[in-house]
Each structure stands twice: as C-alpha cells, then as structure tokens.
C-alpha cells in the first residue's frame, strides 16, 4: 500500500539512533560520574 509519504527510512533510523545514543550516553554519564564521585567518608 502506498502512503502519501514515501520512504523516509533514513529519518526513522536517525531518530532511533539518536534516541539510543542520548539515552545510553546519559545513563553511562550518570553511572560514570557516580563511580568517580568523591566519597566524603573515605578520605580519598
């Protein structure tokens, strides 16, 4: 069945890839910073 908008797969892929990169990147960023954070009780 032909839709009014043809193709456009590159936009769909771009949207999904960017979403994945941003969400995974932010998750990684939070975990990384938490791991690196100074702990006030350990005196490091």
């Amino acid at each position, binding site marked *: 069945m032909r839709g009014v908008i043809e193709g456009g797969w590159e936009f*769909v892929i771009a949207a999904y890839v960017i979403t994945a990169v941003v969400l995974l990147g932010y998750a990684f960023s939070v975990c990384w910073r938490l791991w690196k954070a100074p702990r006030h009780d350990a005196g490091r």
Partner: protein
Amino acid sequence: MGNSRWPFVTAGLGLALLVWGSVWGLFYAPREVYMGDVQRIMYVHVPTAWNAMLVLTFAFACAVLSLLRGGWGWDARLEAAVEGGVVLSALLCTQGSIWARPTWGVWWDWDPRLTTTAVLLFAFAGILALRGFVDDPVKRAVWTAVAVVIAYVDVPLVYFSVRWWNSLHQLQSTPETVSRAFHWPLRINAFGVLFLMIGLVELRARLAWQRRAAESAPPLPSGVAVATGRL
C-alpha cells in the same frame, strides 16, 4: 541517600523494554496509511514527550518540597530531575525536528508542543547554569527551587501563547495523535523510558548528594590521613 542496587535494576529493565518496543515498532508494527514508515518515529517520540513532562513535573514537586520542607534530599533529587528533564527535552526537540523534515519539508514547524518544549529546554538549562554559579549550598538549593517553580508555572502560559500565535498561520495536526498507530510498541517504550529515567534520576540524585556532602566535609589533615593508612 541509599546505596542499594534497585536503580540499576530499574534502569536495566527500562532499557530492555526500550529494545523490545523499538524493535517491534521499527520492524513489526503495521505501516501507517498516510505517513508511511515515518510514523515509526512516534514510537520513540511520544514516549520521550510523556516522560519529559513527567520528569519536569517531578522536578517541580521536588522544588516545592525543598522550599517547604527543606533537607538536602529534595535538593539532590531536584538537581537530578532538572538535568534529566533537560536531556529528555533536548532529545524531544531533536526527534521532533527529524520528524518534521520529511513530513513538512522544514526542520522546524513551530508546533506548539514542540516549541513549548524548546522554551522549557532553555529555561531549565538556564537553571542548571544558575546552579553551577552559586557556591553557597543553602542559597543554591533555595534559588534553584524558586527558579524551577517559576519556570514550571510558565508552561501552560507558554503553550497557550505559542499555540495561539501559530494557529493563525498553520493548521497541521500535531504529531502526537497516534490513533492510527499500533499501541503496543508505544506503551512498551513509554514504560521503558519511564523505568530508565526513574533509575537514572535516583542515581543522579545520589551523585548530587555525595557531591554536596563532600563539599561541606572538613578536609582531613594529611598527617592523619597517612597515619590511618588512607593515603
């Protein structure tokens, strides 16, 4: 702030749901009649939109509680929620732009919801900047909370003003109407982003908590540190 593992589990579950929902929406959901495959962007765009608003509403709640009840816990969660909200808003604007290009031929179509998100993005990013410049932790907590309350109250005003401003020129439907789409990938992804953000906001709040505690902890004299074997 706790040390337990639940946020990691929740975030992991969220990611798993997102993979499931995205694969479903990308490859197995039926093609939409008029928008074709571009409609599939909705399976990530709409969940992001719902959760962006949810996270910012949570930020507002934290701000109110921080002002009324005080305590560093609410301030830490506030910082986490504002940052998470900024990330989701930025993502939302990017997705909206990518959707607009094949649909309307322009990179930005001044859709009221998306434009409101852009304004919110700038407002909350500014609040993060504000936070970075205040050294006194008490003032920082109060001022960010006040700024968040003020910015959040603005949301309906911004939305209506932009919608009105735009209605005289364009009459296209907003992308969030997915009545023709298959609902399941949407719901799965919505819960996916939700669980992911719940986990991440909690972790980010712990980070904020630890940073603030480190900020106010007195520095150990180096002699003591060496003597007790900590250095």
